[in-house]
């Protein structure tokens, strides 16, 4: 998938992984050295090893939100920890902004963390003895910024994540959602380019989770960070991701856009996830439209190619003729037959719901 060079692709790769392995156990090194490609599960077991990440290769582009999705034990968090170098990968290469992360000295790594990386943790990882403001100011102070300056910046961050008025609270005085807002503010305090989020909303109640996801999308709309987001929640992945990597037993089963994964699941495992997804709520018009056919007579209605199908389904079905699809500049880019929409809404899930 990504054995091309580092600078290839139309967008710049901020993070690039090449055949990354993480194997736990005493014989890890010899096991990895003896394999070309994927490590065989049976071989790993007989060597007394547990494979966390198995030959992962992918790129994350600038400003892209890549979600790593998998069930517990699938190696998704391990992969993230390798890329943030909280653990060292057993083998493979990881480049961050073109620099070889694994070859980096600890001093260089410290610099990188202090200036380029931010991370949010599932159970928040807040310092219990520090207030909201002090927690947010903490990474700045670690960089050597003075108290006055760091606290004033922390105040801005607290404002950004909606914690105004609670600056002097201690973590234990906050709800889970509020604590995670602190975690988010802290991870953003140093204005990192790369943002790691390890199941940030998994410990929250469903309603709060939804609220935090909205908040997260709002922030990302403003900040445009390069993001690696780990979750076990497929719906969350669909809601947030530009692209999704689905992991199983350390292997990336499929890496594609949400629509791509729903419409063309690469493996049986991925298909199981997609089966129950209400496709009309996820797919955009673009994914099911036909190319423009000049002969065809279109209705007067125009829909945006970025609309979610569910939001326009009723009006489309009320038209007698196919509907024109336009892009952001209002140029005609395709047409949509009601039959496709019906197929999305009621059709056989195993079939691709468009004519082509």
């Amino acid at each position: 998938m990504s054995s091309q060079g580092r600078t290839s692709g139309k967008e710049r790769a901020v993070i690039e992984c090449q055949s990354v392995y993480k194997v736990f156990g005493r014989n890890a090194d010899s096991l990895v050295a003896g394999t070309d490609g994927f490590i065989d599960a049976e071989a790993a077991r007989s060597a007394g090893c547990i494979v966390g990440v198995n030959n992962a290769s992918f790129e994350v582009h600038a400003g892209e939100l890549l979600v790593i999705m998998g069930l517990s034990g699938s190696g998704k968090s391990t992969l993230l920890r390798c890329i943030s170098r909280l653990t060292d990968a057993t083998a493979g290469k990881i480049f961050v902004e073109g620099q070889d992360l694994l070859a980096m000295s600890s001093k260089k790594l410290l610099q990188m963390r202090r200036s380029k990386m931010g991370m949010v943790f599932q159970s928040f990882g807040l310092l219990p003895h520090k207030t909201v403001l002090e927690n947010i100011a903490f990474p700045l102070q670690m960089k050597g910024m003075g108290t006055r300056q760091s606290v004033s910046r922390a105040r801005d961050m607290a404002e950004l994540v909606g914690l105004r008025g609670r600056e002097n609270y201690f973590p234990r005085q906050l709800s889970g959602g509020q604590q995670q807002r602190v975690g988010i503010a802290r991870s953003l305090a140093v204005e990192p380019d790369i943002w790691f989020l390890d199941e940030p909303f998994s410990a929250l109640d469903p309603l709060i989770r939804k609220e935090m996801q909205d908040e997260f999308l709002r922030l990302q709309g403003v900040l445009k960070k390069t993001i690696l987001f780990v979750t076990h929640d497929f719906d969350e992945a669909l809601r947030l991701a530009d692209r999704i990597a689905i992991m199983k037993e350390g292997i990336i089963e499929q890496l594609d856009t949400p629509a791509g994964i729903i419409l063309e699941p690469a493996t049986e495992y991925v298909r199981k996830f997609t089966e129950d997804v209400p496709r009309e709520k996820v797919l955009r018009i673009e994914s099911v439209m036909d190319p423009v056919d000049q002969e065809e007579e279109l209705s007067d209605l125009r829909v945006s190619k970025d609309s979610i199908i569910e939001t326009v389904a009723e009006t489309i079905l009320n038209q007698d003729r196919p509907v024109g699809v336009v892009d952001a500049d209002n140029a005609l880019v395709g047409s949509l037959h009601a039959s496709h929409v019906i197929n999305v809404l009621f059709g056989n899930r195993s079939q691709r719901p468009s004519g082509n």
Partner: protein
Amino acid sequence: MSPPRIPLKAVQFSGLLVAFFVLANFVDSSDANWLWRFPPLLKDLPFIINDTVQKLLFEWMPIEIYDPDIDDYESSPLFREVTRAVSSSLLVIIEFTREVILGGVKTIVVFTDWDFINENPWAHWPALPWTVITGWAIVLGYRLRGIGLAILAGFSTVYISVFGQWEPSMQTLSFVLVTAPVSVVLGLALGIWAFRSKSVEAALNPLLNVAQTMPHYSYLVPVIVLFGVGDHAAAIATIIFATPPMVRLTLLGLKNVPADVVDAGVMNGCGRFQLLFRVLIPTAKRDVLIGVNQVVMQCLAMTVIASFIGAQGLGSNLMIALNSLKIGTGIEIGVCIVLIAVVLDKMSLAWAHKQKDYFADRTLFQRYSIPILLVAILAGGSILAWIGSFLFEEGRNYLYIVPHNKGITTAPFWQAAVDWTWDTFFFILKDFNEFLITQVLFPMRDLYLGMPVVATFLLMMGTAYILAGFRSALIVGGFLLFIAFSEYWDRALITAYMASFVVIVSAVIGLTVGSLCAQSAVASRAILLVCDFLQTFPSFIYLIPVIMLFGITDTSVIIASVVYATVPATRYTIEGLRSVPVVIQEAGTMSGVSRMQRLVSIEFPLAFPHIMLGINQTVIFGLFMVIIGAFIGTTDLGQLILKAISDRHGTGIGITLGLCVAFIGLAVDQIIRTWAERRKKELGLG
């Protein structure tokens, strides 16, 4: 696999007992028979230790030292110089602290000389008037916990002053003020080191175990040899004793820091030291500060025993009073020690639980109100003392310092109470005493002494194997082998018999009281409070009231030990029973169990591992107290250790005896702890 397990154990146990009795009855009791007693192969160990220490002190690594008195270089062994340096610096610190509180000239002497003092009568550091220290204690108490602690602190200091125990009390306090910080820093450093390196932890663990199970005063002997006699030697012995719990709690606290917090620290760009001092230690603060509390209590507990090797203060006065049977004075001093212990305990705990409050917008006065108040008290107290110097005759300025033994005394009252008790209950007490000794203790002792050594080994190792596995059996065997090869097997048996009697009685009382109280939340809280209170008493204090009733006999020791050792058994039973998850209790209730059934078939099995840990503590406490009992006359290992203290060549004997006691404790600890852990795993409790 669970149904056949219990019967299997029962069968194993019956087999073990049968084998034990066969051995016990058929082994011939002659000294030549090694089945009866092992030959004392380690007989020379004390002498080897002695020689090594002597060599270390007087011969090893001579270095050239400049001696200003004879204006020449002298050859002196390195080790001796090191111990000298340590002692003298400690001594200076102790003297300094003491003189800050009580006044004096020695600190000034350090910077000048005695001639200077003689020529300048003004060169005398003034004591802090007792009113100042009382005021400070009240303010500190209020600041830390509020009005209750303030009253307690005020009451205690006034009591100590009014009863004329000010001077020895402040000596004791200054002793604690020096030893506690040193132990805390040392414990913190070792704890961090052990946290950073697995091998250090592995090396430190057995050392800590031994240090915590060795009786207090087996340290005293080597300390005397290495450091001489005096406050500094007492301080060193105290520090050795008080540091292990600090190490333990530091390590525990650091290990309990959530992984996410550590990761967050790393990702926020912490360097090694930033991570340690700004993330790990502050997050582990609670445990670390509880360690500080433990250290303070241990230091205070040591003051009595440390008085043997020259610590001044309440401890030595108490020893003198008890030895001359001045029970009344003893009680007064005992109350002072308890008051100091309770106040220091409450203060350090309050400090541990205190959360910093952040109010950025406090005024300058508010922020510094406490220091200002303290200075005001100092000024006020000094003025009062100055006024007092006109009101009272020289040397009896009650507004400055109430002179020792010039305060109110209730000693005659207590003495009268003791006399009355003895007169009134003489026959009852005597009968009880006689009954216990002749009908219970002596037969039990003879039974223990009548065990052939192989039978003892079989019983202990067999029990260890059945309950805790093969590995534990080997470890227990190792510990016992050391004692068996030493010359002190018989003495150890006597210690063991007293300790086991104490443990059985304590465990029965503790389990009964605990299970009864656990039935009600209010009773549980109340009894836990009592336990807290009793645990703050230095162990020696327990001896005072029993001596009052039973005189200096084995009965006194045993009763004091039972009281002391019942505390952990009760506490752990309650904690264990109360912490059975509510869900399981409710599930039981819905399955229709009665209260009794619930206790027997649900709560006890689940609380069992925790209760066993309590019994384990009871064993250690009991052993400890039995040994301490030697001070008032018993015939076991403790008494020999006591003898070793007064012997110039006692080092080796003292250490060997100390190890014997420690190994008894560790052998039992090994069995019970492993057993409890196993049960815990089987129950899936972690």
